[in-house]
């Protein structure tokens, strides 16, 4: 019992102390509650941001990739019910959406047509009618179909009728449902999977049944995204057990990337959230410094009244706990409320977000750590002792500063690793993101320690100053305790404001850079591969948009490296692109002008034989001794695209009609290949169950002078076969008017002859990404494969990155690239992309004017969407809010410091007044002290914030949208804005302080200072 009373006695002293000074306690508790609320909101915010980041990342995938699907390949319909049940139930168990069902059949032949048939259960939202009408559900004797991206010519199958022509709707996962197609095939889609599958026209055909679930973004939260890969693997295993022909397809890589992005976005909240917590705790420390004197006096009294050491410690700890714990609980409740608002605003389920935020182990630790930290900070603030080691005073501030500096070093070490992993797989480590917090802490602690030392330098000049300034400076120089705490708090807080402001500016600048990177002029218009089959239908796009539009060639390519082929992008740019595009100096060592000059190409374009505009039919005399072959002519159309004319016919000549689009074009080559039927048969033979024998064709072909039939008669084309070469570069072995070709063809190997080209004997100059240079060797010549053709490029410049490109790249002059690539494979390099400048909001119009489905990338729209991205907006708003909160905290801190001054120095002020200081001079004394403290805080904060911003920008290569930065972040320190902002803020703050500094001296007479 006596022991209990011994314990209760100091606690009751602590309780009475709290009750006697509710103002100070409330202020301190307010700071702790704010810190807790910030932390709790941060925890909930992390969950919300994670979920949003996942759904946004998945939402950005093309529709045909943004789905989970199960496929089954086989013949016939036996056992379909079971397969259907297993697939549907398996997908539904994943709880990501309702499955769609489709079937795609292997190519088949109706008459001379090679076609592919497909069906879906419901075409709603999938197909967009171009002509005719949509089909009804297959059934009865006839089954209605629509032609996909083709004309609606009827099929040579009596049971199948074509009702119209369609294209895929934007965003529809059509390719994933009906399977990818080649240009040579026509595709027809019906309604009713089972109905079409049971029809005699497709009996015996291999078919692919697909059950697909477009990912429901609303239902896809971060944990689900994290566990999906495992569950998908389990489903795959289970279905393969049911039938080995089952396969499960999912964007596992994209899910992992989305998860990484979510983690980055979530952790990035620490950048601001962590600082908010620290700033609020700093405010609590400042408020607690008001009670430091009282706490010291209480310890003195208890010691004099013979309290044991543990009782004194218990009183101090009890006080801290009694102040901190309720504040933590209140803050936690407020944070949950704020978190609920955030979750609701972000469209996430509130209860789920709060539950997940609170039940994670990390959250529990974080909150417990904050509560303990608040108690420790309170104790340390009210009881900072100095340890004497060999005559040097070591204070808790020194210990804390050393610990924080060690943490910064550790963060650097981890940070480098994390920065590497970021570039590798998009992850950002928590230690790195706590860097600003650590820098702010270090800045605050160094300010606390350095402020008195710097002030001592002012001691001598102060002696010569006026009485008020001298007294203010000397009071700070010789009694810097609370002032140092105030300077430390202001340094941390202003540092946070500066960091938030500069980092926000950096992220915004990066969004502008990213938009310019995506669209170097104002718009990039390029073929949209997700919207149907139009390969071969593209043409030079730039002329559609006028003279100022830049035609660009963009193709995927490969380059051999040491052990593998490096995937790269090949870009062909016109010369004036280098003058007009937006560029950033860090993309390359050379300037944009130098880069443009280095790849300038002055050779001619693609050479060929002009077809007259009035030509109606191309006729090619030929004799074949050996296996029959197909001869086709490649023509570059006047619109810049390429067409293939299949030359058919019997006898000594083959011919092909010249369609209006082709008239006036240029004949750029002839190809010898398998005839269609032989190709179809060979293909089926190759994939049949039995081992396929080798299939080849051989013989001797003699070509004569080609002619063009026009309404006015036949006209010979000026072909000079002696200048023509084979695809291997050999001559044709003929005369000017005749070519003799000994052929040996396989299904994979065709034979081409074409006019020689200016790029045949030399590599074209190009700019390459840095990693490709090593592969090029000392000659710096790199063979780049584009489709079926290999183009030698000579690397004349290197660049770290190039607008619109990611990964490895080669950039060359468009004309040079087009000539070199189209010489080998006509049509492989068409400038079907256009870069253009233009007014905003022209996106839809540009899309409409394009002759083929295009995707329009608008710089303004990219920037707008980057800014509108919830993750980005959250980051931006958080940073802005942090700036404002920090500003308010600074003001509150100054007012608090003033109040502490007025209260703690009441006896001194009374003495000064008894000496004859009038109230105005006393107020000036307090104001000058605040001004010095604010000045020191502003300088410390500016340095701290700028340093934190530079470090974070350098090490955390994550954009506002939590994606790896491309182009990388470049620190944008808005010095002008900072200077004006800080000066304006300082002026306002000092104005407020000037008003408040008069308050203690407003009464008719000074209050007698309290004894204690």
């Amino acid at each position, binding site marked *: *019992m*006596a*022991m*209990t*009373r*011994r314990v*209760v*006695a*100091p606690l*009751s*002293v602590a309780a*009475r*102390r709290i*009750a*006697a*000074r509710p103002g100070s306690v409330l202020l301190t508790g307010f700071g702790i509650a704010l810190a807790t609320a910030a932390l709790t909101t941060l925890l909930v915010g992390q969950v919300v941001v994670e979920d949003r980041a996942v759904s946004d990342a998945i939402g950005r995938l093309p529709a045909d990739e943004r789905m989970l699907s199960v496929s089954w390949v086989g013949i016939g319909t036996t056992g379909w019910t079971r397969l259907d049940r297993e697939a549907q139930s398996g997908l539904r168990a994943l709880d990501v959406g309702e499955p769609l069902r489709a079937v795609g059949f292997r190519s088949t032949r109706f008459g001379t047509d090679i076609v592919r048939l497909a069906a879906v259960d419901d075409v709603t939202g999938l197909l967009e009618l171009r002509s005719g009408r949509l089909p009804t559900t297959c059934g009865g004797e006839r089954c209605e179909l629509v032609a996909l991206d083709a004309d609606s010519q009827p099929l040579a199958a009596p049971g199948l009728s074509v009702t119209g022509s369609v294209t895929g709707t934007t965003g529809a996962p059509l390719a994933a449902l009906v399977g990818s197609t080649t240009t040579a095939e026509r595709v027809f889609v019906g309604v009713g999977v089972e109905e079409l599958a049971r029809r005699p026209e497709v009996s015996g055909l291999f078919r692919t049944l697909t059950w697909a679930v477009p990912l429901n973004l609303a239902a896809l939260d971060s944990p689900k995204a994290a566990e999906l890969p495992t569950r998908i693997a389990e489903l795959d295993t289970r279905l393969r057990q049911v039938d080995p022909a089952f396969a499960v397809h999912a964007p596992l890589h994209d899910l992992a990337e989305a998860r990484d992005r979510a983690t980055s976005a979530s952790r990035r909240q620490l950048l601001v959230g962590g600082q908010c917590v620290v700033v609020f705790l700093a405010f609590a420390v400042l408020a607690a410094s008001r009670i430091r004197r009282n706490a010291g*006096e*209480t310890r*003195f*009294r*208890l*010691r*004099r*009244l*013979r*309290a*044991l*050491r543990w*009782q004194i410690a218990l009183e101090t700890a009890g006080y801290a706990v009694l102040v901190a714990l309720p504040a933590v609980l209140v803050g936690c409740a407020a944070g949950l409320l704020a978190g609920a608002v955030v979750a609701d605003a972000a469209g996430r389920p509130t209860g789920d977000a709060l539950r997940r935020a609170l039940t994670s182990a990390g959250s529990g630790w974080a909150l417990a750590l904050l509560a303990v930290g608040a108690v420790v900070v309170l104790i340390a603030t009210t009881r900072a002792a100095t340890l004497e080691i060999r005559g040097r005073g070591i204070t808790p501030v020194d210990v804390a500063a050393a610990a924080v500096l060690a943490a910064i070093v550790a963060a650097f070490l981890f940070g480098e690793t994390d920065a590497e992993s970021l570039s590798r797989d998009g992850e950002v480590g928590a230690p790195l993101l706590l860097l600003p917090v650590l820098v702010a802490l270090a800045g605050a602690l160094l300010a606390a320690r350095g402020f008195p030392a710097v002030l001592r330098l002012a001691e001598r000049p102060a002696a010569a100053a006026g*009485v008020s300034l001298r*007294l203010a400076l*000397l*009071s700070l*120089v*010789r*009694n810097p305790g609370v002032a140092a705490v105030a300077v430390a708090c202001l340094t941390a807080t202003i540092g946070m404001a500066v960091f938030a402001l500069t980092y926000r500016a950096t992220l915004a600048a990066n969004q502008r850079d990213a938009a310019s990177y995506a669209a170097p002029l104002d718009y990039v218009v390029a073929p949209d591969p997700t919207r149907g089959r139009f390969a071969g239908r593209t043409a030079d796009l730039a002329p559609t948009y006028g003279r100022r539009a830049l035609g660009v060639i963009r193709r995927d390519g490969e380059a051999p490296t040491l052990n593998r082929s490096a995937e790269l992008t090949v870009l062909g740019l016109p010369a004036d692109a280098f003058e007009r595009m937006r560029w950033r100096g860090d993309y390359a060592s050379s300037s944009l002008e130098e880069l443009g000059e280095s790849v300038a190409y002055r050779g001619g374009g693609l050479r060929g034989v002009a077809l007259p505009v009035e030509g109606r039919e191309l006729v090619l005399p030929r004799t074949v001794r050996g296996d029959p072959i197909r001869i086709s002519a490649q023509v570059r159309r006047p619109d810049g695209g390429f067409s293939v004319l299949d030359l058919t016919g019997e006898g000594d000549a083959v011919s092909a009609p010249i369609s209006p689009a082709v008239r006036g074009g240029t004949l750029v080559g002839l190809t010898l290949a398998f005839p269609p039927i032989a190709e179809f048969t060979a293909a089926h033979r190759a994939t049949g169950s039995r081992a396929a024998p080798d299939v080849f064709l051989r013989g001797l072909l003699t070509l004569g002078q080609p002619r063009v039939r026009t309404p006015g008669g036949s006209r010979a084309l000026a072909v000079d076969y002696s200048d023509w070469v084979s695809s291997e570069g050999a001559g044709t072995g003929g005369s000017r008017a005749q070519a003799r070709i000994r052929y040996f063809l396989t299904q994979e190997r065709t034979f081409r002859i074409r006019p020689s080209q200016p790029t045949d004997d030399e590599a074209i100059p190009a700019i390459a990404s840095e990693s490709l240079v090593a592969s090029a060797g000392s000659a710096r010549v790199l063979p780049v494969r584009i489709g079926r053709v290999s183009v030698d490029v000579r690397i004349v410049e290197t660049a770290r990155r190039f607008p619109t490109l990611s990964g490895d790249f080669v950039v060359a002059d468009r004309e040079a690239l087009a000539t070199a690539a189209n010489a080998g494979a006509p049509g492989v390099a068409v400038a079907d992309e256009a870069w253009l400048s233009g007014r905003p909001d022209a996106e839809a119009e540009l899309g409409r004017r394009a002759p083929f489905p295009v995707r329009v990338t608008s710089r303004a729209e990219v920037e707008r969407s980057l800014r509108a991205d919830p993750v980005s907006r959250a980051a931006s708003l958080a940073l802005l809010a942090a700036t404002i909160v920090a500003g308010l905290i600074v003001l509150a801190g100054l007012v608090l410091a003033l109040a502490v001054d007025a209260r703690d120095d009441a*006896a*001194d002020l*009374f*003495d*000064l*007044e*008894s*000496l*004859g*200081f*009038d*109230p*105005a001079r006393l107020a000036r004394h307090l104001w000058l002290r605040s001004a010095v403290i604010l000045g020191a805080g502003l300088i410390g904060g500016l340095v701290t914030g700028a340093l934190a911003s530079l470090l974070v920008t350098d090490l955390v290569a994550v954009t506002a949208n939590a994606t790896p930065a491309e182009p990388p972040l470049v620190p944008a320190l808005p010095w002008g804005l900072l200077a004006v902002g800080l000066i304006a803020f300082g002026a306002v703050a000092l104005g407020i302080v000037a008003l408040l500094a008069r308050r203690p*001296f407003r*009464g*008719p*007479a*000074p209050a*007698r*200072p*309290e*004894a*204690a």
Partner: protein
Amino acid sequence: MTLAVEARDVFRVYETREGKAAALQGLSLEIAEGEIVVVFGPSGSGKTTLLRIIAALDAPSAGLVRVHGVDLRRLRGRARDRFRAGAIGYVDQHYSRLLAPELTARRIVELPLALRGDAPTVRRARAGELLERVGLTDRADSYPAELSGGEQQRVALCAAIVHRPKLLLADEPTGELDAATAQGVYTLVRDLAREQGATVLLVSHDIGSAAIADRMVQVRDGRVSAEGAPGEEALVVASTGWVRLPEELLAHSGIGSRARPELAGSSISLSPAKAARRAPVEAQQPRERSRGRASGPAAELRSVSRRFPAGAAVEGLSGAFQAGRLTAITGPSGSGKTTVLHLLAGLDLPTEGEVIVLGHLLSGLSRSERAALRRRELAVIAQDAPLVPFLSARENVELGLQLRAAGGTGLGALTSVGLGELAEQRVDRLSMGEQQRVAIARALAAEPALLLADEPSARLDEANAVAVGDLLARIVDELETTVVFSTHDPVLLEVADEVVDLG
């Protein structure tokens, strides 16, 4: 004889920014159990340091200290805490710091027992008993801010002895009390000591404390210089032969910086050495003053009342303070002495009535105008000498001069109060007595028309009190300054031209 305290060759050296300072320089002292010892000595002589070391609140730099046989050097941590909690009762000279502002007088007295784990009934009874003994039963539920300085002092004493310590250490326990109250406190201390068989070591400047002393000990320069029963004090001869001669004796003898000892039978006589500078023979006693004639009132109170929420400090007070005169205000603790001085200084305004100072009706002046009046004409020495703590003694004095746009350094004024050597010390590192003298020096340097001093000798030993009295008299005589001061010190009352008793 069982010793309660045994201190042998105790040194205590402090590190300060200005260098090392020795508070104790080989002090030796023995106190028998049950003995009541009163320690005298000038301010800064090491009295408080001695008490703190015996109370185990500080540790000696060298030397032996035993309390009831316990060697304090060997005490560490908990053992030291237990020792202090059980055996020691300590009354600080800064008594106000002992009183938690958030606790009532009763709870303050009870707190040591609560910390010990005593039952509430036991501690309540004991606190009630003590408060009754010091006449504060009706103030038991008052907070310190509602008590006068004397009442606070008594509450602090009760808290110090509530646990019946075997050794009571008291540092100036009556510094703020009037003579009658101080005597009551001494009696209480003696009675409690006798009842409990406690030993008492009491530091005081008040000669009244001798009434309860079994032995008087004089401390000078960190050593015991004399001791003995009251009235029979003898110089202490240390084993090393060191003897500290009283200043008065030296002054009368004319011995300057060197002396020649001569053995004459069993006695030693000292005479000035031939080569040494002879000191002027001057008696250290109050100056003979020609009491000036009053030339009208410098300050006047007309039916002045000043009421606070806790009660009236002054009620319907009228009186005039004649110009060029030295007027003492006296009265028991809580009688309103400080309030009257604050009213005269314009640092407070009356609830009713008028205060006229140097022809100015203070209630008719704004706060700034009153500050300007103080700056021009007044000097105030406040109780507890609240100087500007971060300034040195010289800077404090010069601050007053700068405000009046007067030239000169403060060194002369500081030398006049015997602090010339400490001029560069920060005042918050000086003893209370030294701070008091700095405050006096600051006021004197200003050469004001009206000097107001609140208990100017409260922390001073008799010699310094005499010197202060002399200074005050001199400023009246030489500068025709009007001096009004509050005191209960007979030495100062002695030099006053007029005495106003508020009792």
